């Protein structure tokens, strides 16, 4: 049976507040945790298959061109080599998130430096790697006028948001800011490299892969291979991080599948770290102009945010830099304009919190500049500019904890309010300062299904093809089911990551928990109805707790009610008008304290507080960890992370983890997280929003503002590396 809900109106029932188990929101340990800490959780490349062959992708150091010949014989005689795959179905790029169709084919048409063009398969990894290096590939290169620099090409304009007259508002403003910022490109750099192990039985394909959104990935892979979706099964119970890089299928999954289909044997393909950097989605670099016009009390009369991003020709995705600028602050005169430059770097796509991860911090720096000009405390300035209704669309906010986050975050951090002047504190060579920024991230929900079975022994089984990429899906889906069915987490088994199970939303855009959580919730509502029916009572009179059904003064174990027969429901959640009628988003506030070295310009983050409101908290432990992760990314975003492209030949110069600097242990101080509970009835039937990305949306701005407060250096380029800080450091 199936319970369907298309949510066209807010769900104010708050059913999960009237249930009795008390397991939802609790900071419980991850049920799969023991497997992860003992190295027994099995990731894509680790499934055992007899006589599995190993494939290594061959990439080409050419920015643009067409393959004219591949000399298979150049490697087929090498020890262990079994095949060279040059099939026209090989894909040249990764699929964008939720594409549901084949990404760019054929791979033989090269569009960026390092594009995979063939696959060498051998009996061992070492043999395949060696042969891949020796494969002779002829290419008709067409590099001469292939644009590499986003600032040198004419960009395509996207549809702007225009209200009033921003230019006029700027001239009339008591205080104004007009600043241009740049942010460098980012890599997801998930710790598990992209990997796939494919098996073909002549009719159907089974692929263990490292992917975030199996429902879409199955369609993408089937389309790439000219197979029917039902011929493709994807399995991904554990995914070693995604951050957007595994939203769509990539070349290793298609390559392994084609090789397995051709050879009739299992084939494993794991990208090298360099290949992951060179060929998987990058976050576009951005150039952003932010204009703020304010009256004498610092209230915004004008708000402008324009951004230039880049992507390959033919790619629809454009880093949605302005996403939260649409609704974070007021200002009647508005101009928001995004433009896309077409250049030949690897595909730009989603990297954790696309848009806000680079779009909020620049606005937050501009707000800091405005606060200084207006002589208003930066926290107070933000509080004054929280709009009553969506400033461009004039619709109400569903729920919003921005003011509370700013106030409670300030209190937890020990924010000293009042007028601010840089260089107030020095400890030896180090200037000490603090900064604040708001956090904002759009809310999304996606169609999702989940099956929940109450087994004859009274325990429950939750099944969906949803993934857990470290986000805590195993825990929270178990907790939603446990709460609804009156079971402890120990009595709920959660199975994920297999397309044989009902299709969930997939992990992406912070929508997994609210979308799949709602599907589980709906299935459990159906099961509660069935239990009530079996007992001959109204569902509203039924309570479930600790494995027992309770009504009036009666009590019966769930197993007894089931009487030896399992019952199951499929919950089917679909987004409806509720998220269109309201401005629905997650909000928060960041506070950072930094030390900046007067002589070297080095910045050390000394402590950081984040306060966040994202609807119902489903598991306080995993939610906090998501926030910690986001705040850690803020540190890399602010100080170290930068994709560096060679201006002459277009290759990515820092394509590994030694040269692309993600934060390490010593970069990350004690981080404090304040979770503000709320119920967002419009967001989802479980009143939850997303948290996976919010912690990254704006925090780099708090660090930038802290650098200014510490040493007086206003840095307009991210990351704020020592050379950039030093160049902006005032003499006195």
């Amino acid at each position: 049976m199936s319970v369907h809900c298309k949510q066209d109106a807010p769900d104010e029932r708050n059913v999960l507040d009237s249930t009795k188990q008390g397991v939802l929101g609790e900071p419980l340990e991850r049920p799969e945790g023991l497997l992860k800490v003992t190295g027994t959780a099995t990731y894509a490349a680790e499934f055992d298959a007899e006589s599995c062959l190993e494939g290594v992708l061959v990439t080409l150091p050419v920015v643009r061109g067409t393959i004219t010949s591949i000399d298979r014989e150049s490697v087929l005689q090498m020890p262990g080599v079994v095949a060279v795959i040059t099939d026209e179905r090989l894909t040249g790029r990764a699929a964008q998130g939720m594409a549901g169709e084949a990404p760019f084919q054929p791979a033989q048409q090269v569009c960026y430096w390092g594009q995979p063009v063939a696959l060498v398969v051998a009996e061992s990894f070492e043999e395949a790697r060696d042969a891949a290096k020796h494969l002779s590939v002829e290419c008709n290169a067409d590099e001469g006028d292939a644009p590499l620099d986003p600032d040198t090409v004419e960009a395509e304009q996207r549809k702007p948001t225009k209200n009033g007259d921003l230019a006029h508002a700027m001239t009339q403003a008591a205080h104004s800011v007009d600043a241009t910022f740049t942010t460098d490109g980012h890599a997801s750099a998930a710790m598990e490299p992209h990997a796939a192990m494919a098996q073909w039985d002549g009719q159907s394909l089974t692929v263990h892969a490292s992917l975030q959104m199996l429902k879409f990935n199955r369609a993408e892979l089937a389309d790439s291979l000219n197979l029917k979706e039902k011929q493709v099964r994807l399995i991904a119970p554990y995914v070693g991080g995604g951050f957007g890089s595994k939203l769509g299928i990539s070349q290793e999954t298609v390559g392994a599948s084609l090789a397995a289909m051709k050879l009739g044997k299992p084939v494993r393909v794991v990208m090298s770290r360099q290949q992951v950097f060179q060929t998987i989605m990058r976050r576009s670099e951005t150039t952003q102009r932010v204009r703020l016009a304010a009256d004498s009390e610092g209230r915004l009369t004008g708000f402008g945010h324009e951004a230039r991003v880049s992507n390959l020709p033919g790619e629809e995705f454009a880093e949605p830099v302005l996403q939260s600028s649409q609704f974070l602050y007021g200002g009647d005169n508005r101009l928001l304009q995004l433009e896309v430059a077409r250049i030949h770097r690897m595909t730009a796509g989603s990297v954790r919190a696309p848009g806000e991860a680079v779009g909020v911090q620049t606005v937050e720096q501009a707000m800091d500049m405005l606060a200084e000009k207006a002589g208003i405390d930066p926290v107070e300035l933000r509080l004054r500019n929280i709009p009553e209704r969506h400033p461009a669309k004039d619709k109400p906010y569903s729920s919003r904890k921005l003011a509370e986050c700013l106030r409670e975050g300030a209190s937890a951090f020990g924010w000293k309010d009042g007028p601010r002047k840089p260089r107030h504190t020095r400890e030896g060579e180090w200037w000490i300062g603090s900064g604040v920024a708001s956090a904002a991230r759009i809310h999304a929900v996606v169609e999702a299904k989940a099956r929940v079975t109450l087994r004859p022994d009274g325990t429950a089984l939750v099944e969906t093809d949803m993934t857990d990429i470290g986000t805590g899906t195993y825990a929270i889906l178990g907790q939603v089911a446990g709460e609804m069915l009156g079971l402890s987490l120990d009595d709920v088994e959660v199975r994920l990551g297999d397309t044989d199970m009902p299709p969930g939303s997939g992990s992406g855009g912070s929508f997994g928990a609210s979308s799949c959580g709602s599907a589980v919730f709906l299935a459990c509502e159906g099961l509660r109805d069935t239990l009530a029916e079996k007992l001959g009572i109204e569902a509203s009179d039924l309570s479930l707790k600790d494995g027992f059904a309770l009504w009036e003064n009666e009590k019966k174990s769930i197993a007894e009610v089931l009487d030896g027969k399992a019952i199951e429901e499929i919950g089917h959640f679909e987004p409806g008008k509720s998220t269109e009628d309201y401005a629905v988003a997650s909000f928060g506030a960041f506070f950072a304290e930094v030390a900046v070295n007067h002589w070297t310009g080095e910045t050390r983050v000394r402590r950081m507080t984040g306060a966040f409101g994202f609807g119902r908290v489903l598991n306080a432990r995993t939610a906090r960890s998501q926030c910690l992760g986001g705040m850690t990314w803020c540190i890399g975003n602010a100080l170290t992370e930068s994709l560096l492209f060679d201006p002459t030949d277009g290759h990515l110069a820092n394509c590994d983890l030694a040269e692309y600097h993600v934060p390490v242990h010593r970069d990350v101080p004690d981080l404090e997280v304040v979770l503000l509970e709320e119920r967002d009835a419009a967001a989802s039937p479980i009143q939850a929003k997303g948290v996976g990305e919010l912690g990254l949306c704006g925090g780099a701005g708090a660090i930038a503002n802290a650098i200014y407060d510490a040493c007086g250096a206003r840095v307009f380029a991210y990351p704020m590396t020592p050379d950039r800080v030093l160049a902006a450091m005032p003499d006195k």
Partner: protein
Amino acid sequence: MPITINDTPHDLPDDPRVSLLDFLRSHAGLTGTKKGCDHGQCGACTVLVNGVRINSCLSLAVTHDGDEVTTIEGLGSPVSPSEMQQAFLRHDGFQCGYCTPGQICSATAMLKEIAAGWPSDATDDLEASPKLTGEEIRERMSGNLCRCGAYANIVAAIRDVAGENA
């Protein structure tokens, strides 16, 4: 002499190109040790060789004739996890779990290095015994990357195991 992995002897591979990491994962069937970069840059492949932590991707298997290797599977199992493994679980010192075996192997060996008096970049007085401060732990764990950003919880887990000294 064969190589001993988690108290079990194994014959070394014929192919001298096989790294210790690939030997563990592909030949010995011990996939708990992870490959994150294959270049000694991320620490996901950290194992203990004769009690000392190394990046197993930077070492050829055939050079470990007679060595005793301990992997994450040798530290503890789901049935009897080690103290450090339990602490990671308790403090949510991981998210996706992929860097986790390396973090745990590294942390286990790192505490012994501090106890043995090895200094680090964070040690103020090179003559004195290093103190188990947060900064010492962070410095010594900086070879183990975690992209999920679980560092704060990992440090908490390590401090928990180190007890009153931390």
